[in-house]
């Protein structure tokens, strides 16, 4: 009850704060979503991508 009141008064009460929070949240969500999907893709295709097998073909000097 106290927490929901706190959230309402802090974020939802003023539309300007609400919209700003939504945009900031969208920014963070976009980055997080991207990172998460990339991580999942890399783990799903482990050993198939060039960055995983590069060391077999190219010797760094």
């Amino acid at each position, binding site marked *: *009850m106290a927490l*929901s*009141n706190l*959230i*309402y008064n802090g*974020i*939802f009460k003023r539309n300007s704060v*609400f*919209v700003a*929070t*939504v*945009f900031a*949240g*969208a920014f963070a*969500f*976009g980055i997080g*979503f991207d990172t998460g999907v990339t991580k999942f893709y890399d783990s799903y295709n482990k050993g198939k991508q060039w960055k995983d097998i590069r060391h077999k073909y190219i010797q760094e000097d």
Partner: protein
Amino acid sequence: MASFQVLKKAVSLAPTTRTLSSGVPYAPLLNLAVRAPHDAHGHGHGVEARSDVAPQWAGGPSKVGSSLVSKSFTTIPPTLNYQQRLMHTSRALKNANETPDFSAYRSSNTDGNRALSYFMVGSMGVISASAAKSSISEFLQTMAASADVLALAKVEVELAAIPEGKNVIIKWRGKPVFIRHRTSSEIQEARSTDWKGLRDPESDDARVKKPEWLVMLGVCTHLGCVPIGEAGDFGGWFCPCHGSHYDISGRIRKGPAPLNLEVPAYEFSEADEKLIIG
């Protein structure tokens, strides 16, 4: 007995024998002034108007001369019995006990529900804004140069392979690029020129990043021929097409060309051993 005769006379009408020219049947025995017997009731209220007979002022049949006329007045005087008509005829219920009692379904935690509702709206906004942003940026990325184009856009040159006082011509984005390793006397000559009086005034400092390396596009600014190195009246380049002379800093000195040879974007890297154009 006499009144009974009158009534009988009125009800059993004599047959009409002819019709008047006005269309009214001629009935000479019809007594229009007849009144219903009021003494038959025996109420003792005299000869007042009866409630079951229309009053005289409301119209009715009357005899004018020898013809029968029936009138019904349309402008009937209003009755004097006014009664206020109300909008609602049903009585308001003081206690509406037919309404179901919803208090058992009412939430006591309205603050939490309000916060949750707004949170849902905000989450929808977050996801839509993110989707819109990613749609736009993905669309804009389709306009960007692809990786193979970008890979061809840069050229690396090993500077150690170019001895002092020599020209190298390389191809960059389909155009020749002149790279000259200038000697100290050439640098001296390029710097000492009074460049303010030239056709396209530009100092040697503005044209090179390091004085010993001169990098220019090898395209004559006149009509796009490729000038010849180490030629011309000023010890620099000479365009054989129309005779433009460029000096050792690539500035136009003589001939039809309007501008100095163009300097591309370039940089030195890896401890000044490599030159990257682009």
